[in-house]
C-alpha cells in the first residue's frame, strides 16, 4: 500500500515536472524555431521586393510577417522583427508596435520577450551598436543612447516618431518569476549615418557568429 501511494506520488511529480518543463521548453523552442522559418520569409521578401507587406508570411497561417532584421553584434544576436507587438507575434520574435514607424521611416518601437529574444538587453551597454536591415535591403546603424527603467503606470512611452530612433522595450526585472508586471526596460538607440553599407560582408560575418552561439536563447 505504502509503496503504491508513494509511487503514485512520484509519478505525479514526474508528470508535473514534465508538464512544466515542456511548457518552458516549448516557449523557448518556439521562439528559436520560428526565427529560422522567418529567416526564409525575410530572404524571399528581400528578393522579390513586393509592395504588399503581408506577402511573405513565415508560415501559412501566420498573422504576422517580418518587417526588419535586427542585429546586436556585441552580443552576437541576430533577430527578425515581426509586425505587431501582441502575444501572437512576440512568441516568435520581437515585434514592431504598429503605431510606430518602420525603421528608416521614423522612430520604431520594438518589443521583445525578456526571457527569449530580448534577453540580451540585460547586458547591453551605452554606445554599443545595433544594426537594422529594412525591407529594401538597406542596413541602418544605430548606437545605444539611453537605457531607462520605467513603470508603465507612471510613465507613458515617450517617443518622437519623427526622429530616427530605435526603441527596444522588454519586461523588467529579468530574473523574476513574475510576468505581467508594470516595469519595463526601455533602450533608446539613435541612427548614426543613414547610408547603405556593404551587405555581403556583414551577412557572412554575422552568420558565423550566429551559428557559434545564440545567447538570446539562453535561459
Amino acid at each position, binding site marked *: 500500500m505504502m509503496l503504491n501511494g508513494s509511487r503514485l506520488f512520484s509519478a505525479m511529480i514526474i508528470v508535473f515536472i514534465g508538464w512544466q518543463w515542456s511548457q518552458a521548453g516549448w516557449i523557448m523552442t518556439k521562439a528559436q524555431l520560428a526565427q529560422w522559418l522567418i529567416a526564409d520569409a525575410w530572404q524571399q521578401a528581400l528578393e522579390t521586393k513586393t509592395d504588399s507587406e503581408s506577402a511573405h508570411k513565415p508560415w501559412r497561417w501566420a498573422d504576422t510577417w517580418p518587417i526588419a532584421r535586427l542585429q546586436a553584434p556585441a552580443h552576437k544576436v541576430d533577430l527578425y522583427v515581426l509586425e505587431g507587438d501582441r502575444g501572437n507575434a512576440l512568441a516568435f520574435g520581437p515585434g514592431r508596435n504598429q503605431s510606430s514607424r518602420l525603421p528608416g521611416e521614423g522612430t520604431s518601437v520594438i518589443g521583445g520577450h525578456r526571457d527569449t529574444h530580448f534577453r540580451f538587453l540585460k547586458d547591453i551597454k551605452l554606445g554599443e551598436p545595433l544594426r537594422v536591415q529594412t525591407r529594401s535591403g538597406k542596413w541602418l546603424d544605430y548606437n545605444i543612447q539611453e537605457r531607462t527603467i520605467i513603470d508603465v503606470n*507612471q510613465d507613458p512611452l515617450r517617443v518622437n516618431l519623427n526622429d530616427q530612433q530605435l526603441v527596444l522595450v522588454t519586461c523588467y526585472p529579468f530574473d523574476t518569476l513574475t510576468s505581467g508586471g508594470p516595469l519595463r526596460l526601455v533602450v533608446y538607440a539613435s541612427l548614426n549615418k543613414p547610408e547603405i553599407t556593404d551587405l555581403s560582408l556583414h551577412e557572412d560575418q554575422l552568420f558565423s557568429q550566429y551559428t557559434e552561439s545564440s545567447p538570446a536563447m539562453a535561459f
Partner: protein
Amino acid sequence: MCFQPPRIPKHRLLNERDYSNPLFQRKRQSSPLIRWGLLIVAIFATFVFVAESTRAATETTAEPSSSAAPYDSKAGQLFIRADNGHSQPALHLDSKVAFVVSGMVLHTTFSQTFRNPSTDQWAEGIYVFPMPEKAALSHMEMRIGERRIIGQIKEKFAAKKQYQKAKAAGQRVALVEQERPNLFTQNVANIGPGEEVTITLEYQDSVAFDAGRFSFRFPMTITPRFMPAESPMLSGSLLPKHTSESGLNEAQIQTAAQMVLDNSRPWGWSAPTALVPDAHRISPPQLDSSAQRVTQSHQIQLSVTLDAGLPLQNISSPYHDLIIEKQQQRHFISTRNVKIPMDRDFLLQWQPVAQQVPSAAAFTETLTQAVNHVDDQQSQESENYALLMLLPPQQKAPQQLPREVIYIIDTSGSMGASSIRQAKQSLTLALQRLDHADRFNVVEFNSIHNSLFSSSQTVTAQSRQQALRFVGGLSAGGGTNMAPALDTALSAPATETHLRQIVFITDGSVGNEAQLFELIHQKLGQSRLFTVAIGSAPNSFFMRKSAQFGRGTFTHIGDEKEVSEKMSLLFSKLESPVLRNLSIAWPDGISAEVWPQQLPDLYRGEPLLIKAKLSNLDHSQTVTIKGDLGGNTWQQQLTLNSQHSTSTNHPGISKLWAREKISALLDEKTRGKSESDIKPQVLSIALQHQLMSPYTSFIAEDKTPARPIKQDITSKLVPNLTPHGQKTLVYPSTATNAPVNFTLGLIALLLLLTQYFYRVRRNVELAP
C-alpha cells in the same frame, strides 16, 4: 459500499508493514507524518507563491524584487524613473454619467471617482479627459466620504496657484482645467492611502438635429494626437503673427509661464513642440483595453432620461446595447451591461414620428436678480435668453452648378485598423456617386501627402477606375501632417464653372488645431470644406470647427455599419442647393445679441440654431428669418412667447448662450485677432455665467489639511483607454511564463529527490 469505513489513521495506512515493529514504532509514527506534512506544505507553499506573484502582477502592485536594483553600477548608465525600480499601484478610476434631455437642451451630470489603492502612499491624480466640444461646464463639486465641497470658478492662473498651495499644505483639492474645448484636465491632490475622492461635473449642451433626427454624443476616450514638430513648408507664409516687441510671441510667453507651473506635473508622452506648445499636457498615457486592470478600472455607468416633447418613432445607439423603459412621455435608458468600458463615444439618437418633425421651436429663459441701486433702492432686473430652432423646407431641386470635389483621406497611423476601413468604404461610395459633369481628385496624407492626379480630372469610367484602385491600395501608417495636404487642396486653382467642395475624411487627431484653422481662414476662398470624422474617438472639436470655418458640414462615422447611411446623407447635402445669406429681423423694441453673429449657410436637412440674449420679452413677439435658397428668397416667421404667457422657463439657455459667445470670441482669435483683445471679454462672460473656458478653471478646496506634511505625495497620470478597434503606442507585455514553468518543474524535482532520499534512508534504517 453501503457502510462507513472505519477511520484508519493515515500513518497506519501508509506504514502498515512497519507498524508491527515495536522498535521503530514511535519514530515511524512521527517521521512519516512530518515527512508527508513537509511535502504537502512545500507544494502548498509553491502554489501560494505562484498564485501570489500572479495576483501581484495583475493588480500591478508587484513587490519590488531584489534584482530590481540597478544591475549595472557604472554611474550614469541607467536612469531609473520608476522610483528606484519599485512599481507603484495605479490610481483606479470609476465613472458615472446621467443625461437628462428636455426638448433641445441636454443637462449632464458626470462624476469621476479616483481611488488610491496604495497602503501607505498619498497620491495626486492627473486625468486628461474628453468632453463634448460645445458643453457649457458650469458646476463642479468634490466629495470625500460624506463631505461635499462646491467648486468655484476662478481665473485660470489664480486657480492654479491656489491649487499648488493647497496641495503643498496637504489639503484635499481638485482643479479642472480646459486644454481644448473638448479636452480637460482633472487634477486631484492628496488622495490618502485607500481613499476615494469623487469629482462631479455638470454641463449643459444643446442636442443636435439633422435630417429629421435628434442626437447627442458623449466622448469617453482620446485618440492620441499627432504633434507636428515644426511648421511644414506651405505655399504661402504661415508664420506666427502676433510677435510682440521683445521678439517673443504671445504663445511663447504664455508657454514659458505655463511651464513654471507645470514643473510639478508629470508630462504626457509628447514633449512640447513649436507648433503644439502644450503637447505635454494633452498627451495622456493610454491603457490597452485588453489589460487586466481594465476589468476594474475605466468603466462607466450610464443613464439617460429622455423627455423629447414629441412622439418618437425610435431611439437608438449605434455603438452600445440599450435597455429602454417608457413611463408616460419619458424614456429611461441605460446600457445592457451596467458598466461599459470607456473606449469609444456614446451616441444616442431619437427620431420623431414623420408627421411630427418640428419645423420651428423656441425656448426661453428669464433670469431675474435683485439689483442694488446707488440710492439704496432695490429693483428687479431680468435677463432674457432664447434658443431658436428653425428647419427650412427640403429643396428637391438639384444643385445647378457642376461640382469639383477634392477628397482628402487621412492614412496616418492613428487611422489604423477599423478607421481606415471605414474611411476607404466612405471614399469608395463617394467616388461611385460622382456625376459625369463633375471633376474630382483624391489626396492621401500621412507624414507626406500624395495626390492621385496632378490636377482635378473629369469623371470618366477610366478616371473613376483609377481612383478606386488608388483608394483600394491605401493603408494606414505614419504621422498626421495635415496642413500640407489641406493646403494642396485649398490652393488648387479654382474654376468659375465648377463649385469646389473639399471632402476631408480623418479622425482629426492633431494637436495643432489653431494652425490648421488659420490655414482654412486664409485659403478657403470660394471652396467649401466638408469634414467626415472617422473612428471610435475622433477629435470632434477640430472636425466641427473646420467645417464651420470652411462653410461646409460635419459628418460623423463611428462604425462600419454607419458608413452608407451617413455618407448618403452627406451626398444629399453636397448635391442640394444651399440656404445662404441668412438674416434675422427682430421685432421693434427688442434688441438682440445673437451668437454666432455671422449666421452659417444651411445644407439640406440642417436646422438653424440661434442663441440670443434679448433686451426684453414682455409680450409675445414674431421674429422673421430670411435667406436665399437656390436663387429664390426664403422667409419664415417664428413666435416667441413671453414669460408671462407661458409658465415654462427653460433653465440652462443662458449658459448655452454664454458658451456660444465664448466660442464665437475664440473663433476671432483663429482669424488673427490678438489674445489680449479676446481674453478680457471671455473672462468676464465666463465668470459672470460661471463657465469653464480657456481662461477660467473650477477649483474645490477642503480647508482642513489631510496629509501629514512629513509624508510625500506622488503624482500619477490616469490613462485613457485605447479607442475601440484601434492600436496605439502602449508598452507591450514582454515576459513569458517560461521562468515560472521552469521553476515549478525545478521545485517538483527537488520534492522528488527529497522523497527518494527519505526512502533510501528509511530502507537503510530498516535493514537488519
